[in-house]
């Protein structure tokens, strides 16, 4: 049988991924990289849900939550990339700092 992975180690991995996502969201200027950071944050949250779901006697509530998280993340990515493409067509750049400082 498998040796159990300690729960704290999974939570620490999830915290590290969450931190990397926050770092990407704050420091990057290109809009697509900010979206990649947001995807990383979603993944960290859903890793937590699956980690606790391992100890659920009915076994499935956390996994169902993480399935819905993945689904909402997919919808969010589609709409956000469509918005990024429109913004790029309008401003001719995807750099967030230049977008806020330019006249419409």
């Amino acid at each position: 049988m498998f040796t159990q992975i300690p729960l704290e180690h999974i939570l620490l991995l999830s915290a590290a991924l969450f931190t990397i996502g926050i770092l990407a969201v704050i420091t990057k200027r290109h809009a697509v990289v900010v979206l990649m950071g947001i995807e990383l944050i979603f993944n960290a949250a859903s890793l937590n849900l699956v980690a606790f779901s391992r100890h659920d006697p009915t076994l499935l509530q956390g996994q169902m939550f993480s399935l819905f998280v993945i689904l909402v993340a997919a919808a969010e990515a589609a709409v956000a990339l469509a918005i990024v493409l429109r913004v790029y067509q309008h401003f001719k750049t995807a750099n967030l700092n230049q977008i806020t400082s330019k006249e419409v």
Partner: protein
Amino acid sequence: MLFYIFAAVAVLSGAYMVLTRNLLYAGFSLLLTLLSIAAIYVLLFADFVAVTQLMVYVGGVLVLILFGIMLSSRVHDKSVMSENTNVGWGISISLLTLIGLSYTIWQAGFSSLPWIQQADTNVLGGQKSTVHLIGIKLMTDFVLPFEIASLLLLIALMGAAYIATDKEKV
């Protein structure tokens, strides 16, 4: 032991995604992170979630992100590179977040909670996979979120197609 290898791969490629300035390298290191997270899902007895992660993230979202990189930057000049901003604030905020989260996890002692210690053995209960149970759950307990999710996906599809079309030319 396999868990720590995949965790190291996930964290290292995530860090490379932040550190590199080439957008395509960032996209492919995000691919590596998502793949190792899917492997960790398998190790956590969540096979259906792992396959969904592979199909939706690696097959869908990452291809969309690569499309976004290709369409929103001119590859010939230097704009496939992305500059950094707010580096000091970003590093300090994320370090504080990491320290706070680690301290909270270490102090909370989740492993000594009673409901976790009771359910800690015989996790899968003799069954081989979670697909059967997830199917039953989706059609009984979670049928309302399931239907709302399908509606959400339809709205997101229509909205994305409407936003991305060029309105002057149509």
